[in-house]
């Protein structure tokens, strides 16, 4: 037996789109080798072929061409033999929602033939690790998002598999649950020397693995250990400190505009992290932009990832200029456009939102952060007038949401978490329809459609069916539709969930440009580093407001970090953990 658990040679997978009679190449002549006992990460932009590759390894699909053997078993001939030995956690782990936590575990233990005497200790261990021991009788459908994901992982791990496949196990999961999930994975990898292949959109997760494969258009662009990969960005990474009056994201935009010199720029802890193209010096970049200070930094895997991708991808031109101009008169920036005072929402005995107050001014980006079940979605729905508040004052664009809901709604745009447009209509038909719902007709409608399709680079896709657009385009279309009537406020519910770093960069460029026109933006996200783009953030947990302010202010509240600047994610986890501890102590005293 060789030490290779997965061996793929010139692997091809082609799908046939029946309607268009087109061939879609998902994997193109891919070679890969996964060694026993290794933790391997698959990263890459959306549609790179990560899920297809995992499904081929799991025997859920047959390759079109090429060789694939798993655990020295040929996948063409004996997929069932492989399935007896491995465990696979799909992106959407289908828990049986009517069954309890224990019944879900039992089902998988029975199917895998786990002997009764081994079960007890295995269950105990899994339930302790996942903190689900107190919930064994609860139906899986009534668990929070993070808990469901942990139960899914527990179900895949009812016995120690010879190969574990995880497809984006942490997508849509809050940072706290994400940390816990990884703790479980790493612990089992160590104790049982599991071989694991995990696909992920988070590069900090990939950095924890021994091998990383960067996929793009069905091929592996680069692979290696995180350290060797990171080396590629050596001496190319810098940290800019903005001038006192300068917003970090303004400095970021200035840097990104130099797309021939700069690979990537992201706000980080009140400063801007910048990756240069190889062969460029920092002097080339700094000569004509305002900034306070610049210093070299140690590269991260994400920096290297961006560099490798940019080498192989044509630059995604994000034409923010069109977004900035051509907008109606700027609203008065001195008075708040959204004003929330003592907002409360209860469902029976359950308090979903407890006494929350905040103001959002025109042109501000306001971030709502919190773990799953924190009350973000409820707050959101009340602001959009989709859910009546139990008590408190809610005014949007100067209109009280209680008395003038329809008026207030005319001033807002809303992009939901799921794609909520009509998949079998074309882009143009969708835009036309939404223009109608905002009461735009005739010339006005034509102008609005022209404007948004130009702003979001949709002009060349107007005749395509919306449901068949790639992920990034779908989101752009959703945003275009919601901005048709030039609203004062745009609501975005987890717009970047599951999106790859490139798509997220492009998204935030548009959002920051939009905010410069005076549109207020209220957004929820699970990517804590995205909070850096926000002017103000509100952190909630269990309906309570825990912290509010600019990212710097929130970091400063936790000043006991010994000088080291904390990442937004660490800050967030800290705030939630401290608060939960306090609550625990209080209830212990009672």
């Amino acid at each position, binding site marked *: 037996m060789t030490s290779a658990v997965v061996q793929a040679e010139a692997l091809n997978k082609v799908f046939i789109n029946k309607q268009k009679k087109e061939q879609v190449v998902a994997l193109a002549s891919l070679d890969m080798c996964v060694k026993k006992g290794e933790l391997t990460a698959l990263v890459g932009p959306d549609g790179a072929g990560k899920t297809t590759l995992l*499904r081929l390894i*799991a*025997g*859920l*699909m*047959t390759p079109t061409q090429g060789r694939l053997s798993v655990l020295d078993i040929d996948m063409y001939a004996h*997929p*069932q*033999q492989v*399935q*007896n*030995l*491995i*465990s*696979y*956690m*799909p992106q*959407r*782990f*289908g*828990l*049986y*929602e*009517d*069954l309890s936590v224990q*019944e879900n575990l*039992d*089902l*998988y233990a*029975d*199917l*895998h*033939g786990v002997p009764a005497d081994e079960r007890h200790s295995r269950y105990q261990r899994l339930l302790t690790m996942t903190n689900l021991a107190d919930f064994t009788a609860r*139906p899986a459908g009534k668990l929070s998002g993070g808990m469901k994901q942990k139960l*899914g992982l527990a*179900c*895949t791990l009812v016995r120690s598999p010879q190969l574990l*496949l995880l497809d984006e196990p942490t997508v849509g999961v809050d940072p706290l649950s994400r940390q816990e999930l990884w703790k479980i994975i790493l612990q089992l990898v160590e104790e049982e020397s599991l071989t694991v292949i995990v696909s992920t959109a988070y590069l900090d997760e990939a950095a924890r693995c021994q091998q990383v494969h960067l996929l793009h258009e069905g091929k592996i662009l680069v692979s290696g250990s995180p350290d060797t990969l990171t080396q590629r960005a050596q001496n190319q990474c810098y940290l800019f400190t903005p001038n006192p009056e300068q917003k970090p994201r303004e400095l970021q935009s200035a840097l990104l505009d130099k797309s021939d010199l700069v690979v990537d720029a992201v706000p980080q802890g009140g400063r801007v992290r910048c990756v240069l193209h190889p062969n460029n010096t920092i002097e080339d970049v700094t000569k004509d932009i305002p900034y306070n200070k610049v210093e070299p930094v140690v590269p991260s895997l994400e920096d290297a990832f961006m560099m490798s991708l940019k080498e192989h991808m044509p630059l995604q031109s994000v034409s923010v200029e069109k977004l900035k101009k051509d907008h109606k008169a700027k609203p008065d920036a001195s008075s708040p456009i959204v004003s929330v005072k003592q907002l409360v929402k209860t469902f029976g005995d359950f308090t979903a939102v407890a006494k929350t107050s905040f103001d959002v001014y025109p042109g501000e980006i306001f971030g709502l952060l919190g773990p799953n079940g924190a009350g973000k979605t409820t707050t959101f729905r009340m602001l959009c007038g989709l859910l009546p508040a139990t008590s408190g004052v809610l005014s949007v664009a100067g209109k009280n949401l209680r008395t003038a809901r329809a008026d207030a709604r005319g001033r807002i745009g809303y992009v939901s978490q799921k794609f909520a447009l009509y998949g079998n209509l074309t882009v143009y038909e969708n835009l036309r329809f939404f223009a109608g719902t905002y009461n735009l007709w005739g010339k006005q409608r034509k102008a609005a459609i022209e404007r948004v399709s130009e702003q979001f680079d949709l002009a060349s896709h107007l005749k395509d069916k919306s449901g068949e657009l790639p992920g990034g385009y779908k989101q752009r279309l959703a945003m275009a539709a919601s901005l048709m009537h030039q609203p004062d406020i745009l609501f975005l519910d987890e717009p970047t969930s599951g999106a790859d770093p490139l798509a997220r960069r492009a998204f935030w460029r548009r959002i920051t440009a939009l905010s410069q026109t005076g549109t207020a933006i209220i957004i929820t996200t699970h990517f804590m580093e995205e909070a850096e783009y926000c002017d103000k953030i509100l952190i909630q947990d269990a309906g309570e407001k825990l912290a509010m302010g600019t990212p710097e202010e929130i970091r400063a509240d936790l000043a006991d970090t010994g000088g080291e600047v904390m990442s937004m994610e660490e800050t967030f986890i800290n705030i939630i953990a401290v608060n939960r501890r306090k609550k625990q102590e209080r209830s212990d005293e009672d």
Partner: protein
Amino acid sequence: MKTNARASGGFVSRLWALVKKETRQLLRDQSNLLIGIGLPIALIFIFGYGVTLDVKDIKLAVVTTQPSEQTEEVVSAIRLSQYFKPTIMTSFQQAEKALRARDVEAIAVFDDSFAADLAAGQADVQLIVLGSDATRASSIRTYFSSLIGTWAQKQADRHNVSTAGKGVTVIPRIWFNDANTSTWFIVPGLIVLIMTLVGTFLTALVMAREWERGTLEALFVTPVRPTEIILAKIIPYFFVGIIGLVLCVLASTFLFHVPIHGSFFILVVGSVIYMLVALAIGLLISAKTRNQFLASQMAILVSFLPAMMLSGFVFDLGNLPTAVKLIGLLLPATYFIELLRTVFLAGNFWPIILKDLALLTLYAVVLLGLARMLTKKTLD
């Protein structure tokens, strides 16, 4: 390999695990129980109490052994009615032969003394109706009685005779359905509808739900075999179907007093086989559509509606245009209805019972085989 041996030897324990899971889901989801138990009860009441059917162009043999002025008048009155197409026959034997050959649906007998009796103030007409289609038979009886009643009334008026104590009484007899209630005819058909609904509709829905919710993706990458997945779906829903059958049989016996002339055993065997056919169709639909909405539409369109309209449940297949009749003859429900009506109303008539059982078994084997072939552990 040790693990491998364990995995392939675990057929029973894996199947048991899946059946447990399926049963729990079934019991916890109210909508399943509503379709499986609530709907059959509603159907029994709706069809048992609420459905009557209109008839026209009744082929009637009129037997007048001794023609008279009065009988001539009655016959022309019958001829003028839009409901009847009378044929005059001179002997009862001839009429009986025509009835058995289904050339006529009813026989009206005006006996020798009709004219004399009528003059005396009280005449009888015997009406014999083919009872295999109870609703039709019942309508024929009602129409005929009212037609004769009206005629007698007019006759009395014309002759300026007081109607008191005078008139014509129709004495009906229904052959092949002793009590002639349409419920007797409909209830056996209802069993077919309910078993189709539970078997096809419910199964198509629950299997498609698994595709839709992505629960199968994780399930596939385990030692589980497609046969086990299919069997686990069949077993619990089979029992729900049997509950539907029991409800119908109970209702037919205690509410509608339908007799079971034939063997109860044959009734059970036929139902079990038909249940498997219905389940197989449900599994086939969901394997192809993988979408709850589509699956439910398909299930209604290809099984429930045809079972109701084209199997002879409502309309006699003999009266349908050839093309539609052919579709009806392709439906397994047609044979199950035929089997049930034979067992309930006619008794153990073996040629029909054996033919229907054989056809249903063939359907069950072929459809289950197809369902097994189409359920593959693949997302391609």
